[in-house]
């Protein structure tokens, strides 16, 4: 496993950085929020990203993809993370897209993946419920057998891009107790299905999310993704990849926030000196640098381990998530502190980095959750 980018990956990184810098400044986050944009991202930009081949990176060539992996996708996600770009990579390319790629029938994949790759379909996966905290297998939403299929009742919270999704992948319990991994079935739902309400939620990080309420939503056996009762492995595999992608985004975000803060330290003058000359701030900045470098290594390793199907992949995903969550919070907190009063204003962009860092930390397991997982996977 080489922890350096190949030449192709370096080129992709440069293209992505240049595109994002020119076309998706962080100010978009405030603009989209303030005008109450119904979609929450730019479909035109999404199509352009599709045109650049970004959406197809982890999908098979037969579906119009590039047949590459997390290593390449993370390069793009990092670039997007630099300016907190809101386009639906996490929901569509990672959560929904990977669930389809890893668990859906050939027919369903052929129906949806090409449309994802072209930027014509938004697909998402519901990974949390209000009382589930970080457990993807905490599924209270239940599926009762009914003529030719099932009736689904329950609630899914913060479904990413759920308000504009063309396809919603929803885990429901067909057997077992609320926290059992076995007995979860993954269902494919269309918006507008009777009994399904989708309400857009407003999150601190402006990430587009929706609350789903299901009341006796009728689905057929054909709407099962993968095998009945066998949904947990698909959901977990999709979450693992989404976690790595989110970590890559965090890496870009923390790097960008750090750079802005370093600029500020070099230029802001108080007591007749640039504040970056004060040793206390120098040392704290150096600590942030260390945290970012460690995060970069963890993301590189996790992405490559997932691509290689390494035995250690699960541990390395947990390492990346724990490391990046804590580092991003550190950098975001320090960035606001070092900017002083203006860092606390909505007008300044730096606050968005804190909101994104917190949201990312509290998605797919926080650092403590992942340390428990590391211990479990390590046998203690």
């Amino acid at each position, binding site marked *: 496993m080489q922890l350096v980018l190949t030449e192709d990956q370096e080129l992709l990184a440069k293209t992505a950085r240049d595109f994002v810098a020119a076309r998706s400044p962080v100010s978009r986050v405030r603009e989209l929020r303030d005008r109450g944009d119904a979609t929450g991202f730019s479909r035109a930009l999404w199509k352009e990203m599709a045109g650049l081949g970004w959406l197809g990176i982890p999908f098979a060539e037969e579906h119009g993809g590039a047949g590459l992996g997390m290593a390449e996708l993370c390069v793009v996600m990092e670039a997007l993370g630099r300016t907190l770009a809101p386009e639906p990579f996490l929901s569509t390319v990672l959560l929904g897209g990977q669930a389809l790629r890893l668990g859906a029938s050939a027919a369903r994949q052929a129906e949806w993946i090409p449309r994802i790759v072209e930027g014509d379909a938004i697909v998402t996966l519901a990974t949390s419920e209000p009382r589930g905290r970080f457990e993807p297998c905490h599924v209270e939403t239940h599926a009762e057998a009914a003529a030719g299929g099932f009736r689904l009742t329950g609630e899914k919270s913060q479904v990413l891009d759920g308000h504009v999704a063309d396809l919603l992948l929803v885990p429901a319990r067909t057997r077992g107790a609320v926290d059992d991994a076995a007995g979860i079935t993954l269902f494919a739902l269309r918006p507008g299905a009777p009994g399904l309400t989708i309400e857009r939620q407003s999150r601190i990080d402006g990430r587009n999310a929706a609350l789903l309420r299901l009341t006796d939503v009728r689905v057929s056996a054909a709407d099962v993704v993968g095998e009945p009762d066998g949904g947990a492995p698909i959901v977990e595999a999709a979450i693992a990849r989404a976690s790595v992608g989110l970590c890559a985004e965090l890496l870009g975000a923390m790097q960008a926030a750090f750079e802005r803060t370093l600029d500020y330290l070099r230029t802001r003058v108080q007591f007749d000196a640039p504040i970056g000359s004060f040793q206390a701030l120098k040392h704290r*900045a150096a600590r942030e640098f260390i945290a970012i470098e*460690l995060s970069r290594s963890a993301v590189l390793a996790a992405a490559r381990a997932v691509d290689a199907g390494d035995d250690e992949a699960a541990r390395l995903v947990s390492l990346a998530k724990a490391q990046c969550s804590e580092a991003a919070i550190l950098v975001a907190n320090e960035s606001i502190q070092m900017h002083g009063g203006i860092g606390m204003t909505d007008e300044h962009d730096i606050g968005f980095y804190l909101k994104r860092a917190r949201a990312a930390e509290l998605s797919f397991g926080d650092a403590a959750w992942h340390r428990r997982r590391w211990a479990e996977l390590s046998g*203690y």
Partner: protein
Amino acid sequence: MPDLDVFRAELQSWLAGNAPESLRGRGSSALDGVWGGRKWVFDHPDQKPWLERCAGRGFTAPTWPREYGGGGLSSAEAKVLAQELARLRMPPPLIGFGLTMIGPTLLRFGSEEQKREHLPRICRGEIRWCQGYSEPDAGSDLASLQTRAVRDGDHFVVSGHKVWTSYADECDWIFALVRTDPAARKQEGITFLLIDMDTPGVSVRPIKLISGSSPFCETLFDGVRVPVRNVVAEIDGGWTVAKALLGHERSMIADAFGAGAGGTTRRQGLAELARGYLGGTGELADPLLRDEIARMEMDTRAFLLTVQRSRDAAKAGQQPGAETSMFKVHGTELNMRRNELMVRIAGPQALGWEGPGFDEEELARTRDWLRSRGNSIEGGTSEIQLNIIAKRVLGLPD
């Protein structure tokens, strides 16, 4: 490469006849190594022949020029030598600051006479060197050193007090930074001087640490007469030499971390250790300790991945990246945290200094913890390292 293959084949046959079987697998930790010098006592009968045979071929300093006792090997050949020694698990025939510090310094800055006088004796393990830099009043601010060297004809008369000189009581010569011009700006009045420890006026006192005995010493100079020809490079130009050597030392430390030294790779697992004291199987009974152990392992892994990333970049022909600047400060802190955690896991059994009621490992772990408090201080304090990162990597203003 045919020449390299010929070299390897010849080397293999030489090793077959000259590398004592008894030393194979003996490891290369400082405790087992041959430091050499006038006072040296070999602790295994085959170490002397191994040293002499290697010295005869110049293998103690493989890449140094042959005329100074080195092997005159190219770096590719030196790599082959290292591989063949590793294959037989042979320890290096000689270690020490002569090979790693003063030798390369003389090769770069020394006069022809100095090279001819000192390098062959280093290569043969006849002379052992120590470093005289720090003083009681000059630690992080090394340039403020006060050991005085006053010119008297063909000699300098040296008086002063060096501290933290490792193994000074076992060494034959010392390379020291002395002040030759007190009127100049502090960096510009320093001279790099080679001093024979047997010269009248040199005395040595060992330093005991909070962890017990240590290789550190104080070295006192009381009117020591040193020939002017023992000045390396220019009089008053010693700071340049010292900086080059410090830089070299830092990259050695970084490399050492890369090779897994600095205590970041461990023999016994923390969870295993905890089970020994907490009992039970399965999930560790103490959830807070479990979290701390996981955190320690994960942080260590993130660091090792960073070291690996830096090596991968070097192999790919890239310039050393900024991440290397954090190896010393972060690597030492991880080591200290680990030592601390191990002691806390052991609970009251970690309180033994010596004697009954504590096993050897417990006593060693406690000494290691005490000793490790110095890791963030020696070789450039963590505070200085952070200053360097802030200035050189982050471009923050003075």
